[in-house]
């Protein structure tokens, strides 16, 4: 049996009874498609976006080629934009940078605007270069000094901090590096385990954590006092820590202290003068100094105030002048 073709049954343009909408003539199992065209404004917007896209793809990098995309009439690239942004940033900062470059670091506190800029720049540089060891809050960890506190191994004024940054700590090949060695009293057999036990007791006693140990005190006076001082107050010339205070770089328990005497842990830091420019170093020094433990620079060995040779304060072991004048 032959039925009339669908096109005759549902001619295009017939009106649907329920909705009074034109049908397009398609029918599937009795389901018909109604002709409800897109609104005109929508269509024109759509065409406009196509025109825009064509223009855009000509003006900007868009079409994939064999080795790289088409470059675009405007010559724009994200890398180029970054470069121009960076240049603009640099030129904006150039005045401050130039001023920082010629300002000796000990004069920074007298220039609050410059100091603020230096601290802000230092905070950024710290996050890139220093947080790996000193931590994001500069609070350090066991074996890595906390830079927020008021305890400084090598000096905590601006000049001393800049010096430490420039030449690093225990960096071979840098004549001006912060240099000192604590003997490995246990490993090298300089002290017997029993003696180490006694001197550990004495060290603990220095900060009131153990009863005084006369034998330990004797060993301390013979072996340790040369760097740590007779009272255990430490020495910044050798980076020898103060053993009487509440801050313990490598731990404050009896085991920690005994282990340090047996086989000392001695921290190192790169000589940043080889890696960073002098202005960034100044900024880093200003930032570290600003963390709450910074000390005032006393201008005794300042080249303008006194001869550079500085007489009695000449630093041993190639220690650079100026060093800190803060009494321990």
């Amino acid at each position, binding site marked *: 049996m032959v039925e009339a073709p669908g096109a005759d049954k549902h001619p295009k343009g017939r*009106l649907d*009874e329920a909705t*009074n*909408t034109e049908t397009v003539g398609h029918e599937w199992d009795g389901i018909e498609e109604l002709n409800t065209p897109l609104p005109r404004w929508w269509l024109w917007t759509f065409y406009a976006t196509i025109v825009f896209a064509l223009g855009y793809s000509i003006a900007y990098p868009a079409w994939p080629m064999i080795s790289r995309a088409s470059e675009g009439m405007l010559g724009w690239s994200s890398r180029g934009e970054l470069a121009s942004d960076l240049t603009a940033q640099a030129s904006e900062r150039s005045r401050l940078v130039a001023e920082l470059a010629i300002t000796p670091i000990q004069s920074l506190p007298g220039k*609050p605007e410059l100091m603020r800029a230096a601290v802000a720049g230092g905070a950024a540089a710290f996050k890139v270069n220093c947080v790996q060891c000193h*931590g*994001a*809050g*500069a*609070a350090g960890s066991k074996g890595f000094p*906390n830079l*927020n*506190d*008021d*305890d400084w191994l090598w000096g905590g004024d601006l000049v001393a901090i800049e010096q430490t940054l420039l030449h690093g700590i225990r960096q071979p090949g840098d004549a001006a590096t912060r240099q000192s060695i604590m003997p490995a009293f246990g490993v090298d057999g300089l002290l017997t385990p029993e003696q180490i036990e006694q001197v550990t007791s004495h060290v603990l006693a220095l900060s009131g954590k153990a009863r005084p140990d006369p034998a330990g005190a004797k060993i301390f006076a013979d072996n340790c006092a040369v760097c740590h001082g007779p009272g255990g107050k430490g020495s910044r010339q050798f980076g020898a820590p*103060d053993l009487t*205070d*509440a*801050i313990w770089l490598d731990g404050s328990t009896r085991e920690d202290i005994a282990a340090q005497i047996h086989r000392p842990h001695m921290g190192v830091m790169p000589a940043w003068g080889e890696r960073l420019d002098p202005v960034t170093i100044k900024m880093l020094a200003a930032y570290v100094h*600003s963390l*709450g*433990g910074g000390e*005032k620079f006393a201008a005794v060995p300042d080249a303008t105030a006194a001869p550079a040779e500085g007489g009695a304060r000449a630093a041993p072991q190639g220690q650079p002048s100026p060093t800190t004048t803060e009494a321990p």
Partner: protein
Amino acid sequence: MTQDQQLARKPGTPPPSLYAKREPVFNRRIDGRFRRIKWAVMALCLAVYWVTPWLRWDRGAYAPDQAVLIDLAHRRFYMFGIEIWPHEFYFVAGLLIMAGIGLFLVTSAVGRAWCGYACPQTVWTDLFQHVDRLIDGDRNQRFRLYKAPWGPSKIARRLVKWTIYLAISFATGGAWIFYFADAPTLQRAFWTGTADPVAYATVAVLTATTFVLGGFMREQVCIYMCPWPRIQTAMTDEKSLTVTYKDWRGEPRGSLKKALKAPDAFGDCIDCNQCVAVCPTGIDIREGAQVGCITCALCIDACDRVMKDVGRPRGLIDYATLEDAQAEKAGKPPTPHLKLIWRPRTIAYFLAWSGIGLGLLFLLGARVHTEVTVAKDRNPPFIVMSDGSIRNAYTLRLRNMQARPRRMEIVVEGLPGAVMWTGDTARQQASARLLRMVPADATQPLRVYVVAPSGTRARDFAFTVQAVGEPGEADRSAATFDTPEG
């Protein structure tokens, strides 16, 4: 055929177009009671809009002297003696809520009075229609000109008219920016081409919208674009005033001539169409209340004048509530005016409106112009100092909300033995209280180190700030002190 009839069409007929071409409106000049009220409201609204930015208000050396200033760049809102900071934006929000409830109040009491008299769209459309009349003449001339083919005279008239439109639009858009910066300074900068591009862009956009909305779209904005008429249908009830054609009195319509022949066959309406001729939205009020009616009452003026001329009582078209219309139809006296306004619904709106207003006034009077907020350093949470004491670092923000520098005293409360010093002083100067000069109308960040004796346990404490010599001008902010003991 009404819209309903159009929609309820027979099956099989083609769908009607949803697009309706605009019928141009050439409303006739009319004078009368409501027209004069409209003149007065229009003059007031335009004067307020154009004059306000130029009013001065002395606030001393540290604050601008513009009476009303929305200083977005410095995040301050000045309104005569009141200065609002961003965190006090609830005052502005409260004013906006009051404006909203005020609209409800007005609508439920006197109907669409806002639409008819005070809405900017109405005011500016009215202004532009007066320009039409000035350039092209009254209703009939304008209609003729509209029908006339384009020729030199028509082009010239149109150009002159649109230039005036543009001038008004520019003055409108131009005045807006003066609310956001010092008006005299900005005006100089504007004319010398040195003002911020944002200013030019704002003026351009507002000039364009005024030109289009006031010059050409007019009543279409009210009928098609504005949501307020739709909301108003929910706000009004049978006790709200609306412009009413008293059909029981007017119908059936008949001209004077016909009425002379058959005195008892016709109502008061002489079908002169004056009510249609003066309507700024081009509707026929005799078809009843409708969304196109903004209740500007010009048809009342027109009808009253005609009734006077033909010696019939005024008020064939008049303000009336639906309830009164029913009463009048039944021959009962209308409700007294006071009773129309003084009813539970309006009283409720009025109470809400005035409650918010009084609340804002109270807050305004009671607010303190000194504030402190505290942000604690979280990394590291605490630092053990070489003497065993514990240091925590905080960033205080001292807020001086008065237009003069003030000395403030900062005290640590609830942390025994604690002393503090700031980021730019040394621990040697630490003490339990700090004095700080805070600049006028400013927030000053202050980095503070607080040190507590060894052995202190973690605890909550507070920073208090007191403006020196000003009792009551104080604030307090809670903080936490962390220690290794936990």
